[in-house]
């Protein structure tokens, strides 16, 4: 938090601010001292806020035209696409927006993993972020059910059926979730209701996420604490805002590319076939952003085991701040962690790919290896590295590596010291 007291200049402003310090909040957000060496991987927080707002705005408009009924949902979506003014644009933004949201959140998460942003004193920011991520998956899954196409219906059937793995009460829980004895109209209407609710829960958590961030301030590529405000920081506005806006525009160009020129490539063609409980699609696959978890789920021959492992994959992320106890945050100064980080990236990409393949033969075998490695990374490798890894020396402040940046940061620092000694 910035330490200085803010006093509005006008009398009215002072009157208002004394009763509700919104102007102080505004001043805090404007002046918020931010490390000046943040790279473009740090712009995804802003991009994600944009994604959330976009989803909420387009979603509210879609809900004005959508009909949540098993007999009418598919048709109402087609009405939106054909007859609502710019309905095609709003729906394509919303459906591709979900994918772009996840693309951004995955980059955001892996950025945090690389630079150790989840470590003390930022554990709560990380945990709130993980809760947001879990809610995002729930919202996305339910949203995918709403058009009531084949993948909607069968995806809903597969995912809700997971709860039947719970011992003793599993079957009853599933019946309760469905509101009947199969995925049907009551399931659709409650999914619609929840799909409308969850984004606002996410919004609330995002406020907490940012609030918790503003207590210690941003981490940075070097991962060392910076004095605030100091030579190492810049005010959030205009320096970070303009950088965020530039990055957002780059992101929007990619976003628009999908929306206008290939709007259906990220979806499954089966979802343009109306839901039919009597015909099961050849391969039931979730949306791309859920595939790694789907691969983990299917790599266990036992249903309950698969479900537990899938939730376990999220759980290890939540407790990550206590699995990786290395004091050094940034992977730039962790030569071994850096390599394991990239292996994890490849492992998760592989899981995503294997999740889209049929669960048989070589695919199943590889998915099992990738799943094992995923847990190995978090439960064994990270705690072990915390003890055995010899980290590179950290710079005293961020001003030196900000010029050279990246992996050579530490080297530049050493060179500088040598030069100074001469």
């Amino acid at each position, binding site marked *: 938090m910035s330490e200085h007291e803010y006093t509005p200049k006008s009398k009215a402003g002072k009157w208002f601010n004394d009763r509700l310090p919104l102007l102080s909040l505004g001043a805090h957000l404007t002046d918020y001292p931010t490390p000046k060496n943040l790279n473009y991987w740090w712009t995804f927080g802003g991009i994600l806020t944009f994604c959330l707002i976009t989803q909420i705005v387009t979603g509210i408009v879609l809900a004005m035209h959508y009909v949540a009924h098993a007999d009418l949902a598919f048709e109402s979506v087609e009405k939106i696409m054909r007859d609502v003014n710019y309905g095609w644009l709003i729906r394509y933004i919303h459906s591709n927006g979900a994918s772009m949201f996840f693309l951004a959140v995955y980059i955001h998460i892996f950025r945090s993993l690389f630079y150790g942003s989840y470590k003390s004193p930022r554990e709560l920011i990380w945990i709130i972020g993980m809760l947001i991520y879990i809610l995002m998956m729930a919202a996305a899954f339910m949203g995918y059910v709403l058009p009531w196409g084949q993948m909607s219906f069968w995806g809903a059937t597969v995912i809700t059926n997971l709860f039947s793995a719970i011992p003793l009460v599993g079957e009853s829980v599933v019946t309760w979730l469905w509101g009947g004895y199969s995925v049907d109209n009551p399931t659709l209407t409650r999914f619609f209701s929840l799909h409308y609710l969850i984004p606002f829960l996410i919004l609330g958590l995002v406020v907490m996420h940012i609030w918790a961030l503003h207590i210690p301030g941003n981490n940075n590529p070097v991962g060392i604490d910076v004095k605030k405000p100091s030579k190492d920081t810049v005010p959030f506005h205009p320096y970070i805002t303009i950088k965020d806006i530039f990055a957002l525009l780059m992101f929007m160009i990619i976003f628009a*590319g999908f929306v206008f020129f290939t709007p259906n490539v990220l979806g499954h063609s089966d979802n*343009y076939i109306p839901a039919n409980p009597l015909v099961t699609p050849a391969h039931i696959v979730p949306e791309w952003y859920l595939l790694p978890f789907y691969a983990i789920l299917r790599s266990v021959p036992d249903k309950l085991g698969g479900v537990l492992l899938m939730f376990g994959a999220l759980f290890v992320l939540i407790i990550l701040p206590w699995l990786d106890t290395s004091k050094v945050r940034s992977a730039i100064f962790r030569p071994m962690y850096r390599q394991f980080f990239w292996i994890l990236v490849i492992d998760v990409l592989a899981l995503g790919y294997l999740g889209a393949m049929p669960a048989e033969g070589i695919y199943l075998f590889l998915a099992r290896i990738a799943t094992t490695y995923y847990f190995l990374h978090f439960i064994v490798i990270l705690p072990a590295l915390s003890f055995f890894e010899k980290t590179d020396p950290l710079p005293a402040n961020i001003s030196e590596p900000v010029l050279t940046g990246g992996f050579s940061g530490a080297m530049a620092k050493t060179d500088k010291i040598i030069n100074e000694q001469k």
Partner: protein
Amino acid sequence: MNKNKIFRLITATFLVILFCEKANSANKELLKVDWSFTGLTGKFDRSSLQRGYQVYKEVCSSCHSMKYLSYRNLGQKGGPEFSLEEVKAIAASYEVDDGPNSQGEMFSRPGRPSDHFKNPYPNDNAATAANGGAYPPDMSVLVKARPGGANYIYSILMGYEEKPVDFNLEEGVYYNKYMDGNKIKMMSPLSDELIEYSDGTKATVDQMAKDVTTFLTWAAEPHLEARHKTGTKVMIYLIILATLVYFSMKKLWSRIDAEK
């Protein structure tokens, strides 16, 4: 930096595997047509759309419904763009059930542009029963409902050939090179000179297949042209704005960079 190279190599290998896999998973490599509506500025060929509608009307529509389309759509911008008179005449050529009237009775009347395309069957079960147990899918979004899209539809239409000698076919099932499992319940719908195009184009199987696929693509994505047009403008706008913001950013940050 060596590590970087290794990483890139692994990623590249991974992508190549992914690609080959994708190519392998398709039943048969689909026929590829250089459609006028693909690409960033793709547009429909207006006369092909009009001919395509004729193929749909005279051939497909005897079994396949198209329930999300209305006759008025045929006159819509970006579509076949029939004139209002033509659309009215097309609609009026169908008898549509309506009602109940003030006496409480159902009646039939000539179609109006606002009416939906008439369904060839009273319901889906009737359609299934009349077609040997296979429901002829509604064609409104068919192109988007099949992997491969337009190329798939075109390939199916062109994929009928003599079955291999050792291939077993039941009664009422036909051999198609591109169909999943090579078995299809639809008889080859097209043959040369099956219809007589009103614009005098020679009605070869290939011509009809292309025209009707173009028509079906428009039916599934009626705002495709508007989408491409708006998209191009949006892109230009974003790129110009991003350039301006980039230089503003550089100027702003030069103060900070100068401090060192």
